[in-house]
Each structure stands twice: as C-alpha cells, then as structure tokens.
C-alpha cells in the first residue's frame, strides 16, 4: 500500500504526515502523531469520543480519512487550553464533577465548545440535543449539562 502524503494544520501548528489511504484521521492522530486525546469508543461514529473539528465543523475523526485533511485546519482537545489557561469548559467540567471515568470527556468538551461557539445561550434542550452524539455511561449526563450551562453563563458574562 502506498502512503498518502498530507500537509495540514493541527491546533494552529503545521503538521505533515504520511498515512495509508484507508486510514481514519483518528488513527493518524493517535498512532502516528501521538495525540491520544481523541478516543476510539466505537470507530463507527456512534459515540463521539473521537470528536474533533475540521475547518470549524464538528466531526467524528473516526469517520474522516487522514488523507482528506490535506490543507485543512484540524482542532483537537490538545489545543483547547491556551498555554496554562484551561478553557472555561475544561474548568467547569472539573469543578462540576462532570466526569467520572473521563474517557468521553475530550469528545464532550470539543462538542460543547462547538455548540457554544454557535449558540452562546443554549436552552437545556439545545444543550442535550447538541451533545446527543456523545455517549457517557458514567454520569447520566446531569453534571455535564450543568457544567455546560454554567460555562455558557460565565462566558456571556452574565
């Protein structure tokens, strides 16, 4: 199998890699680039644990080929904090105990950020449907929704 050469931008940094033509972006991130923040819970787009953004759009990185991101801008959980400053969502997930095992947390944070970027004042229902593509088996979602509500309020300066 001949490799595909890809030049892309991940979290603002220029990155080049060679991957197999049929290799999902998730595998590239995890196995070739050492960015294991995106998790594989299913590999079929049903759990959202591998969520990243491509050109600002929320996607499952297991359903994107590595070859496709040539020239694109990829955002992952590793780029969410700015230096030593956690994003307000990250802070609120910790302070609201919105994670137990934590395996779904990176995906939830990426999805929640995409939601708030688009809708800074979501209703509870909008939050729940906005995060419906991310499975969590530990929390019953209660504290996750509350952490997102608190963040939205905080970021609106309310």
């Amino acid at each position, binding site marked *: 199998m001949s490799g595909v050469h890809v030049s892309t931008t991940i979290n603002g940094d220029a990155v080049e890699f060679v991957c197999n033509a049929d290799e999902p972006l998730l595998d590239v991130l995890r196995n070739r680039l050492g960015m294991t923040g995106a998790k594989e819970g*299913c*590999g*079929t787009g049903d759990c959202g644990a591998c969520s990243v953004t491509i050109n600002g759009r929320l996607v499952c990185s297991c359903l994107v080929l590595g070859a496709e991101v040539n020239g694109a801008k990829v955002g992952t959980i590793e780029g969410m904090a700015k230096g030593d400053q956690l994003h307000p969502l*990250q802070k609120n997930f910790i302070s609201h105990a919105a994670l137990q095992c934590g395996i779904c947390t990176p995906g939830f944070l990426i999805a929640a950020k995409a939601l708030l970027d688009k809708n800074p004042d979501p209703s509870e229902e909008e939050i*729940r449907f906005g995060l419906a593509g991310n*499975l969590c088996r530990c929390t*019953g979602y209660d504290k996750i*929704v509350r952490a997102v509500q608190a963040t939205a309020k905080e970021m609106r300066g309310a």
Partner: protein
Amino acid sequence: MPLDTNFTNQKFKQVGTRPLRPDGVDKVTGRAKYGADYNAPGQLIALVLRSPHAHAKIKKIDTSKAEKLAGVKAIITSADLPDLTAGDRGMRDILENCMARKKVLYDGHAVAAVAAIDQTTARKALKLIQVDYEMLPHVTDVDEALKPSAPVIHNDIFTEGVEPTPTKPSNNNKRASFGHGDIVQGFKDADVIVEHTYKTEQTHQGYIEPHACVANVSPDGQGELWVCTQGHFVYRNQCAALLGMDISKLRVTASEIGGGFGGKTHIWTEPLALALSRKANRPVKLTMTRDEVFRCSGPTSSTSIDMKIGAKKDGTITAAHGVLRYHGGAFPATWAEFGAMTAFACYDLKNVKSESIEVIVNRPKTAAYRAPSAPMAAFAVESAIDELAKKIGMDAVELRIKNAAKQGTQSSYGPVYGPIGIGATLEAAKNHAHMKAPLGKNQGRGMACGFWFNFGGQTCCDINVTPDGTVTVAVGTIDVGGSRASIGLMAAEELGLAYENVRVVIADTSSLGHNDMTDGSRGTFSTGMATIAAARNCIKVLCARAAKMWDIPEDAVVWEDGHAKPAGTNAGNFPPLSIKEIAAAAGNTGGPIAGHNELVADGAGVSFATHICDIEVDPETGRSTVKRYTVIQDAGKAIHPSYVEGQYQGGAAQGIGWALNEEYIYGKDGRLQNAGFLDYRIPVCSDLPFIDTMILEIPNPNHPYGVRGVGETSIVPPLAAIANAMSNAVGVRMTHIPMSPPRVLKAISNRKH
C-alpha cells in the same frame, strides 16, 4: 490495628467537602492515559479470530497460510495455552472462554489470535486462517435452555444443589434456595395474592472504552502488562496462572479506566496478548473493537422470574415466593443465586422463599454488572408489590413502609440486620416534593426500592511523607469514578493536612501487596479503611519523631490539627511541630516517615435506595419519555458528595436504559444482531432529564467514618420504578424488560381489545 469506629458526633474538617479531583486536568486536556493510549517501542498489533457460530465443534484450525504472510510474527490457538488449571473449574472456564478449545460456545468465541507488524497485516492474516467447524444445535434463551429438548452445552454439568444429583447432564448447573418461615401457611393467611412471570433481557455494561492492553513477555519469564481493568492484581494472578508464570514476575500497571461497571473484573484477551508476546518475543498491543466488546466480553444475564406475593387487607405481607432463572452465558455460574439473595432483602417477612436456577446458554460468559443480579429480582418483587398495593387499595409507599426491614429484622437471605436505611429512604420518598407534583396527560408515576450488599475484601495502602512534608498515598484499587479525591480527603482528614498536600496514586502490582478488584462498591469503603489505618500508623511515627526532636517519651506526644503537640503541660512546653518540620528533620530522627496498612475490610454496610420516576407515554407509538427522576439512597457517610451524587445519577441512567431500550437481540442463527452503539441503545443526553439526588447518611457501624458502598445500589430500583410508572401511565402491567415501544404499543392495543 483495630479501628476506632466510634464515629458518632464525629466532626469532619474535610470529609464531606467537594474539592477538585486530582486527575481532573489530565482528563480534560486529553493527557490521561487509558488502555489504548499506551504504545511500547517495537510493538506488534494483535487481532483475534472469532467464531461466527453459536455452537460448533472445532474440527481443525489451519494457520499455515497465515504464518507465511510477511509481517506475521506469531499466531496462537488453544494449543498454545495448555490447561494448567489443575482441576479448578472456575479457572478452566476462564481459560476456555479466553480461547475456545474443542468447541465454540457462542457467537464471538475466540479461536485463534495473530500478532503482526501492523493492523493491515494482522487483518489479512486473520482471513488466511481456516477453521473447520461442525455445526451443533444451539440455544440462547434462558427458558428454552431448560427444556428437555434443548441441546446440552456441556456434557459434564450435572445440577448441583439437588438430592440426589442427576445422572444426566443438563443446562442447569445449580439450584439453591433462601428464606425462612412457612410460605404455604403464609399464602393461606393472605387475603390477596399477586402472581406473575417476569422477563428481563440481557444488557451490557456499555463502558465507552473498549478493552485494551499492551503485553510484553521476555524469554527469561518476566513480563509486563499495561491494561484497563478494575483489578490489576487479580488480572495479574489469573494471567500468571493461565500462562504458567510466577506471579511475582508479571508486573501489571493499570491504565486510567474508561468505565467498567463490572465488565472489567474479568480477563478476556489479556492472556492472548501475553501468549502472543511470549511467542513473538515482542511487545503486543491488543484492543477490542466495539463489536467484540458486545459479542465477547461479559454482559449480564437475561432472566425469567416467577413471583408470588400475598398480603392481608391491612397491607401486611404474609408470604413471598420467587423462582429465579438467570443464565451465566456459556459457562456455569451462580448469578441466579445472587438474585435470589437480594430479591426480598428490603422487607421484613415472616414467610419467604426464593429459589434460584442457574442456566447455561450459547451466549458470552456473563460478568458482573453493577449490583449483579439484583435489578432483575427487584423488578419482579417491586412490580408485584406495586400490584399488591393496587389490589388492596393502599398507597404503594405506605405498603412498603409497613413491611420495610429494620434493625433486628431477619433478612430474607439469612442474617439479622444492624442499622439500615430502607425505612429512612421510604419516609424521605413519601415526603418528597416529587411525590406530590401533579402529573400531565399520558403520564404515570412509579417508585421502587432496591438493595445491595456491598463488600470489602483485601486491601492495602502505603502513605509516605516526603521531605517537604507533603504526602503520597499509594493504593491498589482502581479509580473508576473519582476515588482518588475521596481517598485524598480521608488521608488529609486523618493527618490534618490540606487536601492539596496529598497526592494519591494507583500503584502497580509490584509496588504494593495484593488488592482485590474495585467492585462490590468497595473502593471508597475498603481503601478508605486502609488509608485511615495507614494514616493513623503514620501519625504514630510522626509523634515518635516529634518526641525525639523534643527529647521526651513517645507517649507524651499527641497529634492534633496536623501537628504534634505535647500531651500536657507535664510533657513539656513545646510549640507544636508541623508535618513539614518533622519531615525536614526525618533524616536525623530515623529516616523516611511512612505508614502502611494491609487488611481485609470486612463489615461493609448494606445499602438501600428508593427511586421515584415520572414517565410519559405516547399512546399511539408506545414511545416513552422519562420526565422526572429522583434517587434517594443511604450512603452511610458521603466522603465527596459530588461523586456520590454522580454514582446515584449514573446508576439510575443505566437502569433507565435497561428498562426502556437496551437488550441483546439474537437471531435464529444464534448470532448477536446488534453489536454496536447504533442498535444497542444506551441513553443519550437528550433522552434524560436532570436526575435529582438525595443523600441520606445512616452510618455503617463497621467503618471508622460510617461509609457504606454507594456505587451499585442505584441501578437496582430503576427497572421496577419505571415499570411501575409505565404501568400506571398505560393502565397495563408491564412484565417484560425492556419496555421498548413495540412491547408497550402491543400492551396498549391488547388492553383495548
């Protein structure tokens, strides 16, 4: 050391507060390392070849073509895993489940495994392995498997617990019974009797992280295993036994764990990875796919339960009788027994009998799932009790309060209860605002109770005081949901240190003595006990060192608020010494300061919960929505209330999924049809409301802080609470879990005709 359990009126400075969890930043930045996040230099990738048949003889496995494929470094079959279990049936079953021997016993049963230089090569190799099967008749249903016409899965299983032992093998490996009194007389005394058969379908723990490990065994017999597990010590012991290794030579490091709920208490592919690594002399990484997790890890039992309860018109239950059939998958187990023990545990019954029948079917080997076996039994009992209340014309909560077990009650499984919380949760439910809130159209309210034993087990803890006076705590129980924070709180509480000055780590198997699994809701209970004891031992050393620094006798020093102080004015007039000061001088007063403890944490407190639930049903489609949900549970003592609430909410959510939509669906061919998150429908965020919680604290007299386990009980009541709510909403008694829309719609249309 004997622990002071005189906690009454204990005043806590830190226990009961809600500090930030120490692993929080790692987990929100993607840095935390889970099972699949670790890679060893030079590692191979392993894949497992699995049976497509539910039941078949393996006539031949030909791996020769696969072996010739470039990049394939090792292939194993059962021939590479000789049976070293020396008559231990339980271990032999584990071995046979890890890799099929003469027969495949379920769809997904492993038959061979490959390690190759990459995923692509390993995939190709799997396709080159040829297995000749001779198909055998199969049975996947718990009731069908008991019929005389059913194919017998193991010809060496003869029902245990009946006299005389049968001479013919069957799929019923064991029977047992629990109870006391005279149920025949009890039913004669009853004015009203309710009798039904209830069914529940098989569910999976549904943890988001698939099983993953990296094994590294070298020819000198030493090995390392990185793995996501609920109990790395148990994994170590079992893997070493199956592979013929010295336990001490296998070091197991537990990764962060992405959910377990009982499913990671059992070894599945780990021995295969170790055997492949040993054969290839290279590190081997083996990760299950989601499909494999559903098909071949350890889901719970499906069940069929006959339930009969009788009562007087005043609500006094005169007799209760249950017959519980649970399957253990393709291997003998005792899941029905645990169901039978828990079934009637909430009540004070004069005449009670619960009988268990264990069943073997062609499905994956059943593993524990959060309060294993209790939710199904509670579904049957609590449904029947609700119906009884209706028949008598009594309020469902009142009927339960009237019959609730209390201190001094003989439990249905035998022992007499000490102080327990069932009555308190029921009173709290009765007075809860949720109970009085109005209901809308097509809505119904239901409530139910649940019980779980909880347990303790072998545990150890090392506390080390570092030279700057901050402290590390090493424990051997996995942190599945925030226990590092709770343990840190307890250590800080005892030592009088700030929570921030305590760092809790999970030690690998070579750094600490054996610890049992994190299961049975024992993490905070038993590791807490060991931590408190280790801290108290550490304090003794700290006092001794202070005594040396002051040149006074050891017993003239006391420990208060994180400082050594002279016991009284007679002892001398010294300003208190902080841990920091004592630690700084440690090199001159006897060397490093530490406290250890190893114990068997007996005396776990039983716990009870009462749940209330409102359901709305669309009468035209049978679709239901949970509108409101309240969990009331006794925690004994909540060390970190946020994570106690989290356990309550998580258990309730899993129970809601089980009650409404989750189920294993097998085809006529005996193959699992919904091995993925698309069609195995766990609740998503938009399916659930906020889940209200109420923590009651009825201290466990056997724990220094009064802790009971909290992790499991919360999954026990939901099946019944939702069934009761659903039945009230649609006016038909629902007796089959999950109450999926087709079942509900069918029940509604049957009611109309």
